[in-house]
């Protein structure tokens, strides 16, 4: 326990309060329900607790002895050592939300830098502090579109090539708001089909770049068509891809969101991750979440502070843009350090390594009998492989025989994509791992 009280402390404090026991302080709690038993295990010492979690962690197939080719929204990129050292500074991780700027300039400036780098990376004009993850960033983008038109437009066009979980989360968020989602029912709609759905009720059209299948769709002229219909364009991006491919802001996006986990944050079984949210400046007063602005203190020193606060729940209550309060602050710090450390030259190199390795792997796999790689559109670090048998069976073989964690089984979300595997390759996959994967896939077919 982390309770410093001595017996003498307790006695002195109880005397000061004027009660005989701590229990007396709870007399307002209904007597019949007061002080229930808790059926929990006995306390462990620190040593035993550590052994216990180490044993649980040991029961997972994770770590350097496995080659990972699974992505689908969470990626095994390298996290430089510096990040963890900085995150473990108690001055950062044991601080609260920076409500008191005089005591929080470290956090505030770091988030300001994060906002700046995300805006520059996405080619947008402003960004917020963070959301829970890429999927909730996207759901909040839908909210912005809905409130932007004050209910006059309630249709949101979704590309079926957006991550299935992102589309699911957006629907969960908007089950009570009257937003209608269209476009992704069939699973095979092309960009042209989505454009055909634009009308005077459309609030937003959303696509993913590169899309869930790793492909880069031709977005030239898209923004013009969306804007001509009076709607907003939202682009969901991979921040690593932004280092190599044209910025989404350049395509005329009004809102750019995405998952920041790739920026030096460990896989950690799905979280904590980091949603980023960037926008054009004319929408900035309508977005959710914390925003840090630059100002000065009373003595003229440069200082940072949370700004545009009247959008937020603690001030606007039922009229707030969102209920979000706690976000993913420390993860934004991780992303900020990653972008600073990799910087202009390193981030581009990460992207190119992903590109080269993914294309090397795709080329090898496409040579294998029974396998084909979908290469109609350019791709970045993920690609779809049509396999000769169910992905589940192939993955079981890869795991048992080669310690390889294979790609994502697309039939889980797209019933018409039977036997299709989504393979992710990053800078952390060595040539030896890729060659092993190719050999294993070949053997899995025999």
């Amino acid at each position, binding site marked *: 326990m982390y309770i410093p009280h001595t017996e003498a402390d307790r006695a002195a404090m109880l005397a000061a309060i004027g009660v005989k026991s701590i229990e007396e302080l709870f007399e307002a709690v209904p007597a019949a329900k007061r002080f229930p038993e808790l059926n929990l295990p006995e306390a462990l*010492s620190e040593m035993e607790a550590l052994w216990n979690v180490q044993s649980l*962690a040991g029961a997972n197939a994770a770590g350097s002895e496995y080659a990972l080719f699974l992505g689908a929204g969470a990626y095994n990129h390298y996290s430089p050592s510096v990040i963890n050292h900085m995150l473990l500074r108690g001055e950062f991780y044991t601080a609260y939300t920076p409500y008191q700027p005089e005591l929080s300039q470290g956090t505030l400036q770091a988030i300001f830098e994060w906002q700046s780098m995300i805006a520059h990376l996405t080619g947008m004009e402003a960004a917020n502090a963070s959301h829970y993850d890429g999927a909730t960033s996207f759901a909040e983008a839908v909210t912005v579109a809905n409130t932007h038109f004050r209910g006059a437009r309630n249709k949101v066009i979704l590309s079926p090539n957006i991550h299935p979980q992102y589309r699911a989360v957006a629907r969960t968020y908007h089950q009570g708001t009257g937003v209608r989602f269209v476009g992704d029912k069939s699973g095979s709609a092309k960009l042209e089909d989505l454009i055909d759905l634009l009308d005077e009720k459309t609030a937003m059209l959303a696509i993913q770049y590169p899309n869930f299948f790793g492909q880069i769709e031709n977005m030239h002229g898209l923004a013009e068509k969306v804007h001509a219909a009076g709607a907003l364009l939202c682009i969901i991006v991979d921040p690593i891809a932004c280092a190599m491919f044209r910025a989404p802001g350049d395509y005329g996006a009004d809102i750019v969101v995405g998952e920041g986990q790739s920026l030096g944050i460990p896989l950690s079984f799905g979280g904590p991750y980091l949603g980023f949210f960037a926008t054009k400046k004319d929408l900035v007063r309508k977005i959710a979440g914390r925003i840090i602005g630059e100002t000065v203190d009373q003595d003229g020193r440069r200082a940072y502070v949370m700004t545009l606060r009247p959008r937020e729940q603690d001030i*606007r209550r039922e009229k707030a843009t969102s209920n979000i309060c706690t976000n993913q602050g420390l993860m934004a710090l991780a992303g900020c350090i990653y972008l600073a450390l990799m910087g202009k030259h390193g981030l581009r190199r990460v992207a190119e390594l992903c590109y080269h390795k993914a294309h090397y792997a795709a080329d090898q796999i496409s040579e294998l009998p029974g396998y084909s790689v979908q290469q109609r559109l350019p791709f970045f670090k993920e690609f779809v492989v049509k396999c000769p048998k169910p992905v589940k069976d192939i993955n079981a073989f890869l795991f048992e025989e080669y310690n390889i964690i294979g790609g994502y089984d697309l039939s889980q979300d797209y019933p018409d994509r039977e036997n299709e595997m989504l393979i992710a390759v990053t800078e952390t996959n060595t040539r030896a791992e890729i060659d092993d994967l190719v050999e294993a896939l070949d053997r899995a077919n025999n």
Partner: protein
Amino acid sequence: MVAKTDATKVLEPLIYDLGSPGRKADTLLPKCDVPESDFRAELPANLLRDELPLPEVAEIDVVRHFVRLSGLNYAIDKGFYPLGSCTMKYNPKIDEDAARIPGFAMLHPLQDPTTAQGALALMYTLQNWLAEIVGMEAVSLQPAAGAHGEFAGILMIRAYHLDRGDTKRTKIIVPDSAHGTNPATSTMAGYTVIELPSDERGDVDLEALRKVCDDTIAGMMITVPSTLGVFDENILEVIKIVHNCGGLMYMDGANMNALLGIVKPGELGFDVLHYNLHKTFSTPHGGGGPGSGPVAVNSKLAPFLPGPIVKIVEEASEDGGAPLYGWYTPEKTIGRLKAFHGNFGMHVRAFTYISLHGAEGLKAISRHAVLNANYVRVKLADTYKVPFNRHCGHEVVIEGRFPDVPDVHALDISKRLMDYGMHPPTNYFPLIVPEALLIEPTESESKETLDKFIDAMKSIAAEARQDSNLLHSAPYTTPVSRVDEVQAAKQLVLCCRVPNFSTE
């Protein structure tokens, strides 16, 4: 929206301003070990990007920059942090180590469940512990923060009524003392908010409650103990009134640190609540997150939980053997609230924290948190007005104002407290208490620390009477003095310029 950085005094340069064209950290990435494809030939030229406006710094620049920034922060690891409703207790270091074990940190969320049995076992156990602690039937660990858990809870209430064909319920009752997230959540779920006044003791006004309760009420959100720091003496009656009109009861679990082993909300009759693992179970606040906001429900709402959650899919074949865990989506689920399964790293920390305490340790947490708050309450009551001066929960609200010095405000007291080396309490919340200062000491703090805080608060009261300007201009010892929030909102600099930008 570009910052003008030259005219003012700078504590720490922006990371962009520390660089130089061509400088880089070049030890981080391996050489390319596969044939490099010629992407410039393979890809249309207009698909590629030429300019990447990111910093150009060396590793040592990055380390020194962020170490210096960390020095500008106050934190629990530096000192007392009595921020009401935030539970800024000690964050055990071992929890950080646990979450970083490679078997957790390198685990992909979409791996086949058979290859992630340790993680699933941990989540399953945590689900059960969290259900047991509050006397509920089932738990989903998916929500990423308290407000996210609230959203899950209110969507479940909505789904429950709709599932019964009960479509006329359009309102959620929220007391005027509630956290802002409660009304904001209700709106997000498509509900109208009915604000309810508190009575003179800080409890729910029962007459007002009876008046608004009818068949248009979907439910009520209430914090226990209340945000005024007290246990509502009529809580059973409140729950009964809402249930009698067909509404469901939501408990905001922000104040669970007062309830561990004290009372189980499920036994009081609550239908759903959320935890803040980053409060009650001490996963760190991280300068604003990540948090974790699991939802716990009774049997009425269990079919509606956000999924997937963990269940046993195959019992252990032998005594002492491990069962097989798998994912499960409840049949009437409100859907998925985020990608994957929640902030798992926070689950590991909370699991470790509960392991270190056991039942007796958890009981001791709430007893000492409440002891500390009551000690502060009685010690400050002769200097500051305590509007609800009865036994409080784990926090106490006082009024930061003096009738004889009307120009001194709660904010002045807070800023001056910084000069005494402490973080201020929560300011101006709850909204219904004038000049509110909400003080939550937590169980981590010793009597000596509390005494220092009490002395500082008394000393500030004396200063206010001697020279109120001393307070108006405080703080004096912090890295920056009071900041100009009006200018920040007016000029709106949200993004820095890029210096020394060179095109390659």
